[in-house]
């Protein structure tokens, strides 16, 4: 297929690039695959970009945006990858697993292949108010926390916490649809725009002052790409840390565990939320908190973002999650705490494959909070 490189370079303002390599140097997958985003920019600039249909490594990018965060010239390298993916989407040459996920979102509002009618099943017995009737706090659950059996306890723990703190909150129930964060990042701009068109008025119709999400991925797109008005978008770690600080949430039990924390890219690097998750962990009675060497801005990506939940990418033998769980285990921690459903799944999987499950347990922060309530 033909790529109009001039148009790409202009639309994405690639001309500022000085080819310093900060992007590729910090790219978490650049040492394990052939993806070199710095060189891709160069090829685009000189008009010699190869046919992207043969660039399997384009699907290796996790959209962690380390390259975007660090570029000294404010070029957005990852956007070139997203731009090339969108050409592949238009061309109809994308991996089947990605097509399936996108079709699921189009038809049922989620990428996991479940029915829309089952979206609120996780909340059975919790008596959560319909946000459409009006509420102060809108809880946006997200697809994985709503359907995935491993992640559902996180959503339930959050709901329980909101109740314990006496908040006026509600959810969109089965009307809630995928936020589209990963949809845009795999290059399906059209579907993403459709999700925004439908989701934005639905969210705004609740007149909620605050919206809290389980996933940093949902928070990211609501905050930066939806143009929502009248509602403050936040991640649950921000809200829960505030509840604890204001003494609106008190713990009654001890959790005697040594805990380390993995910064999710969409929460940490991309939205600079580093302190709140740590504040929650450190306030849980009994928890002994330890840091990994690579933390905060230097955290290592789990490889679950940017559509990577639906496509393996090249060189699946050397998963970053494997490295990451060893780094966590090396601290002597019994629990690797996370604050993102994708991190929870990829890291837990890695713990099992690396046979660390007798030493290390992967838990969402909310699961630890729930134990202490």
């Amino acid at each position, binding site marked *: 297929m033909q790529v109009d490189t001039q148009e790409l370079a202009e639309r994405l303002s690639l001309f500022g690039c*000085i*080819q*310093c*390599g*900060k*992007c*590729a*140097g*910090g*790219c978490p997958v*650049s*040492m394990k695959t052939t993806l*070199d985003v*710095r*060189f891709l920019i160069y090829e685009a600039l000189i008009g010699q970009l190869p046919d992207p249909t043969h660039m399997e490594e384009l699907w290796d990018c996790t959209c962690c945006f*380390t390259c975007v*965060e*660090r*570029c*000294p*010239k*404010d070029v957005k390298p990852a956007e070139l990858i997203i731009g090339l993916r969108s050409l592949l989407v238009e061309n109809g040459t994308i991996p089947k697993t990605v097509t399936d996920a996108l079709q699921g979102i189009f038809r049922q509002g989620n990428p996991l292949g479940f029915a829309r009618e089952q979206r609120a099943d996780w909340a059975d017995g919790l008596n959560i108010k319909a946000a459409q009737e009006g509420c102060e706090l809108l809880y946006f659950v997200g697809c994985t926390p709503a359907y995935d059996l491993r992640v559902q306890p996180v959503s339930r723990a959050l709901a329980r916490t909101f109740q314990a703190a006496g908040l006026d909150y509600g959810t969109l129930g089965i009307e809630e649809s995928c936020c589209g964060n990963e949809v845009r990042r795999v290059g399906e701009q059209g579907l993403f725009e459709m999700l925004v068109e439908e989701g934005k008025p639905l969210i705004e119709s609740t007149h909620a002052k605050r919206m809290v999400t389980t996933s940093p991925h949902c928070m990211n797109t609501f905050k930066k790409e939806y143009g929502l008005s009248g509602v403050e978008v936040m991640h649950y770690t921000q809200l829960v840390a505030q509840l604890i600080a204001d003494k609106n949430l008190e713990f009654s039990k001890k959790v005697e565990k040594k805990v380390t924390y993995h910064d999710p890219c969409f929460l940490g690097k991309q939205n600079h939320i580093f302190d709140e998750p740590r504040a929650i962990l450190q306030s849980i009675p009994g928890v002994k908190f330890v840091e990994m*060497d*690579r933390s*905060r*801005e*230097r955290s290592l990506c789990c490889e679950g973002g940017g559509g990577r939940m639906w496509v393996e990418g090249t060189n699946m033998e050397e998963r970053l999650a494997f490295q990451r769980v060893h780094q966590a285990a090396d601290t002597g921690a019994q629990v690797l705490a996370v604050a993102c459903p994708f991190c929870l799944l990829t890291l837990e999987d890695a713990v099992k494959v690396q046979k660390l499950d007798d030493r290390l347990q992967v838990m969402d922060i909310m699961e630890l909070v729930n134990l202490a309530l």
Partner: protein
Amino acid sequence: MESQPRIGVYICHCGTNIAATVDVEAVREFASRLPGVVVARNYTYMCSEPGQGLIKQDCEEQGLKRVVVASCSPRMHEPTFQKAAQSGGVNPYRVEMANIREQCSWVHKDRTEATEKAKSLIASAVAKATWLEPLEKREVGVTPGAVVIGGGVAGLVAALDVADAGFPAYLVEQSDHLGGRVADLDRTFPEMEPVADWLPQLVERVQSHQKITVFLNSEVESVDGFVGNFKVKVSQLSASSDLKVGAIVIATGYDVFDPQRKPEFGYGHYPQIVTTLEMEKRLAEGDLTINGKMPKDIAFIKCVGSRDVQVGNPYCSRVCCMVSAKQARLLKEQLPDSRVSVFYIDVRTFGKRGEEFYDEARQAGVLYRRGNVSEIYKKGDRVALRVEDTFLRRTIEHEADLVVLAVGMQARDDVEDIAALLKLPRSADGFFLEAHPKLRPVDTAVDGVFLAGCCQGPKDIPDTIAQAKAAASSSLIPLLRGTVPVESATAIVDAELCAGCGMCVDVCPFGAPALDPLFGVSVVNAVLCKGCGTCAAICPSKAMRLQHFTPEQILAQVDALVW
């Protein structure tokens, strides 16, 4: 306005520049019939000797009171025609120009239309001239002496030059010692001369100079006055001194970039990571050990806090390439078995003997690798630099025992305080702004205030000293002349109309108006006023008038154009 404006109008052909496009004779004929015009002439070159002679002659013989010259832009020849009119006895502020070259003949092709436009421009200039008032050219005396703010090399050199010229110099330094940041350096590139060989002597010369007064632990608290007559209040511990000087040199230097603002490098987490300034100290003290061992692998990272919009410093700090080459070479010489690698984006060696010095560093065995290091983390008891070697097209983990961050320069934290003292403008990079990047590199928007060294932007020691000497020379101009000319077309206040709202005080970029403490009305210091007119435009009660651009003059000019 007098009953008889008596205006002479002179239309210049400018060779064919104007005459080829504008019918100068038709324009002359038109001008001669304008109200108040006594004589109208056209001539090949009005700026020539005979052209100027025409003006002088008419002024004398025909008793002209006002002169309008229709020619080029006033930027070039307004002073020429003012002088010609003055020699004929007409006040220079009663000369008005109509620009019928740049704004007419050069930009239009149609002769008829260009001629009509020239007529309009001249009618407008004549209308304004009718209302022009005479103003006095003024000069004021100068207080001999200069204050130099900052006791680094720039301040030391500037103070010495002022003092050596025979004027008192007052050197104000914030810290308890002179020498500034250069005092923290071991040796200087490219000659590798120890700083200890020359800086103490420079400081000693300043301290023992009879014409120099040094204020240590001191800060400038306030600055009043204007070129030739500044009042500078300096506070020193509990005491304070009021200094009266004719000029001020700013030599306040820079801040070193804090690498903790680049968290990906882990500076502060690992003892293996130091800045170039910390390395300088280690080199001076001969302490190169890390964790009790001599480093085998040493890596330099350039452009830390420079050329980086993420930290708001888009500029190049200009010294880090050479500092890195110097330290890398010294380390390689002292630890010949070590591997010394310099990671770079570009290598910039613009100064005299700079490129040769870079050559010498590589010849000494320093390895240059192209790639902007993205992250540093722990690897065993060493650290790993994650970087794409862009020539290899491969991302690598480069292990090192010692990492040197070549930190850049940035505007001082307190730069806004100093800027506010003097109403000095700053450029987008935060440093003080020079009056013109090429023609007036050490001048500022404030007359009599000059810039020296890194307060104006990053530079090395030779450039700093060159600029300090330039700033000292420029500050000597008013001191040696003994008088300074001041603008005549200044703002004046009608105290009857002034409500004392103070809006003029707030908007004036030069600090000229102030509210009279007794009467509560605005008073303009005519020496500070640059005649920009901002105050006159904002004054809600029309009490503020800018002379030479009064409402009557401007409205007459507009009326002539629109009617």
